């Protein structure tokens, strides 16, 4: 495994992958800095470009955007009291008071160092743990894949927000979209209406760009008149060794919390950040400083949320299950590149997967350099006119949707998906379940067909294998706990 990882580093630094990763981190930080723009949107918009380079290079860029985007959110949280991403919500609690007291530079430096160390620990855990999980998962047959897909669909309940029914409704829309085109078992063309455009079904990319980028652009138009609070001036960016020693134990602890939280599908960087913040406050010698500008209060959530980025990739790469929106989009990216996420990825394309692992490690090193040296530049990004950015998101979305098949039909699909995403946000319907449905639908349907053909329609096949029974227990427990949670919250 070490040899594979070293060859991953070799590929990274002998090809255009390292510059792509660096560019991805820069772009990710810029997107994260700007409130309203997310790393998820950035990944969705740039997936089409990865189609024109090798998978290793393309994925390195996407990994860079993801890592940089989560870190970038802290800059606007500290300087503007507006978290660039939900993950930076906990950073704001102490980051903004710290900058208000004239220590904005220190707050940025702590956020940068904590993010990088947290992310690095998470990346190392990912690199060594993921192949071990994949070794177990490679024994899966169609029966297990059906249950794995169903388990993935239960994640809808986690990303549904306030209403479980709305989330399930959105998930069903995604599943229905996935049924267009040739049936995977009987090869009968379904719902094609005689047009060639629908023979292979709806392409994933236009839907992905529509619901994650175009809908945000429309929201950008709606919110274009919102006025940002005044920005705090950025002074010396750095911290003392004494301060570093004080925050280091919190960083390490939060990194483990973040990685664990990320590895559990259905959680997210915001949960990791708040859990890390809570634990740091509980174990701090100065809990009274929290909320008033505690340096530990900035370090812990930043280490937690960046470690979570890598933790979230463990189920995505090993099982092909996206736990939240950003990993769902990266999963979509893998599929667009012709790679099938899951345990076979480790056997079929080890060079790609280990380049990705090398990228996750290296992205944190790039982040620390960029964050400390380029902090003033990234702070300046906050003064970019949002109108211009929103206008270009429209154009990028069109280009992205068109570029994969050179199809004007895909632009129409993207626009429709964007409008649907916008209406969903107006009505508080969650968007990620749609994507989960589109991605997991074919996996469930094709393997369900194969399983039932093999068993002659006998459903007891699902109870004959130990791994299947394990999945059934997990699925029942997940659904049960979520229904109970939603029922309890309504009461």
């Amino acid at each position: 495994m070490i040899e594979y990882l070293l060859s991953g580093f070799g590929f990274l630094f002998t090809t255009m992958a390292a510059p792509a990763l660096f560019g991805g981190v820069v772009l990710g930080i810029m997107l994260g800095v700007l409130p309203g723009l997310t790393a998820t949107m950035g990944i969705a918009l740039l997936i089409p470009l990865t189609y024109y380079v090798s998978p290793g290079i393309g994925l390195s860029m996407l990994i860079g955007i993801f890592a940089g985007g989560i870190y970038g959110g802290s800059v606007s949280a500290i300087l503007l009291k507006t978290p660039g991403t939900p993950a930076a919500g906990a950073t704001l609690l102490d980051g903004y008071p710290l900058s208000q007291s004239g220590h904005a530079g220190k707050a940025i430096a702590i956020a940068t160092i904590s993010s990088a160390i947290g992310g690095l620990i998470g990346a190392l855990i990912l690199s060594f743990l993921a192949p071990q999980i994949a070794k177990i998962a490679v024994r899966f047959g169609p029966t297990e894949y059906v249950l794995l897909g169903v388990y993935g669909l239960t994640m809808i309940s986690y990303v549904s927000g306030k209403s479980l029914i709305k989330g399930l409704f959105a998930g069903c829309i995604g599943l229905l979209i996935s049924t267009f085109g040739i049936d995977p078992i009987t090869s009968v063309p379904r719902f094609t209406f005689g047009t060639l455009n629908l023979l292979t079904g709806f392409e994933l990319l236009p839907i992905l760009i529509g619901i994650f980028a175009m809908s945000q652009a429309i929201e950008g138009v709606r919110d274009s008149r919102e006025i940002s609070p005044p920005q705090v001036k950025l002074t010396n960016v750095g911290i003392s060794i004494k301060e570093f020693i004080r925050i280091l134990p919190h960083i390490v602890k939060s990194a483990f919390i973040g990685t664990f939280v990320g590895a559990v599908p259905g959680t997210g960087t915001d949960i990791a950040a708040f859990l890390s913040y809570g634990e740091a406050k509980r174990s701090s010698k100065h809990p009274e400083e929290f909320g008033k500008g505690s340096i530990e209060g900035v370090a812990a959530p930043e280490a937690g949320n960046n470690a979570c980025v890598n933790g979230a990739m463990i189920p995505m790469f090993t099982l092909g299950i996206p736990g939240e929106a950003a990993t769902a989009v990266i999963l979509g990216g893998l599929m667009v590149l012709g790679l099938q996420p899951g345990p076979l990825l480790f056997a079929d394309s080890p060079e790609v997967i280990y380049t990705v692992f090398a990228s996750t490690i290296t992205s944190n090193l790039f982040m620390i350099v960029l964050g400390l040296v380029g902090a003033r530049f990234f702070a300046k990004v906050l003064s970019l006119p949002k109108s211009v950015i929103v206008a270009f998101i429209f154009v990028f979305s069109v280009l992205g949707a068109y570029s994969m098949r050179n199809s004007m039909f895909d632009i129409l699909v993207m626009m429709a998906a964007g409008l649907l995403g916008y209406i969903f946000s107006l009505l508080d319907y969650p968007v990620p379940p749609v994507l989960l449905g589109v991605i997991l639908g074919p996996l469930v349907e094709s393997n369900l067909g194969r399983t039932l053909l093999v068993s002659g329609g006998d459903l007891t096949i699902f109870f004959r294998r130990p791994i299947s029974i394990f999945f059934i227990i997990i699925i029942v427990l997940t659904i049960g706990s979520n229904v109970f949670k939603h029922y309890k919250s309504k009461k």
Partner: protein
Amino acid sequence: MTTKQKTIMEVVLNTLFISIAIGMFIISKDYRFVRGTLLGSRTFPILIGSIMSIFGIVNISVALKRFLSESEPEVIQDSEAKSGNRLHDCIRMYRVQIAVGLMVIYYLLLTLIGFIFATVIFLPLILYVLEYRRLFQVILVTVIGVAFLYISFKVLLGVPLPEAILF
């Protein structure tokens, strides 16, 4: 947005998707099951469509129940400051609808006159809607933006751009 508008929108959205599910059910009548089983091209769409319709009906009833239980009339505050210019006020009020309309026009222009000319027309218009109206800056952003996109996509990466059918 008022509760009434939100309720109408939610009812329309759910009804639309229930209708799509019913439509798929009708169309899939021609698809056959594998002999002696419930397996076939129509199994999955019917299963998912039925489940989705149930959730849709629940969503509609919850939305209507919420609307009917609202006893106090909703006060809509005019949060948008008036500029004094009727056109600008109108654009401000309907900016989302106008932006969606512009997207449709952009799509039609892309098919007719190709990416470069369509984008040169679209960018200033959407910037106007977004209240970015300094002429020199708009021209600069449009020219540099289109040139950047053309060079980076078409020239450097070799990504094809939408082409015109008129010329």
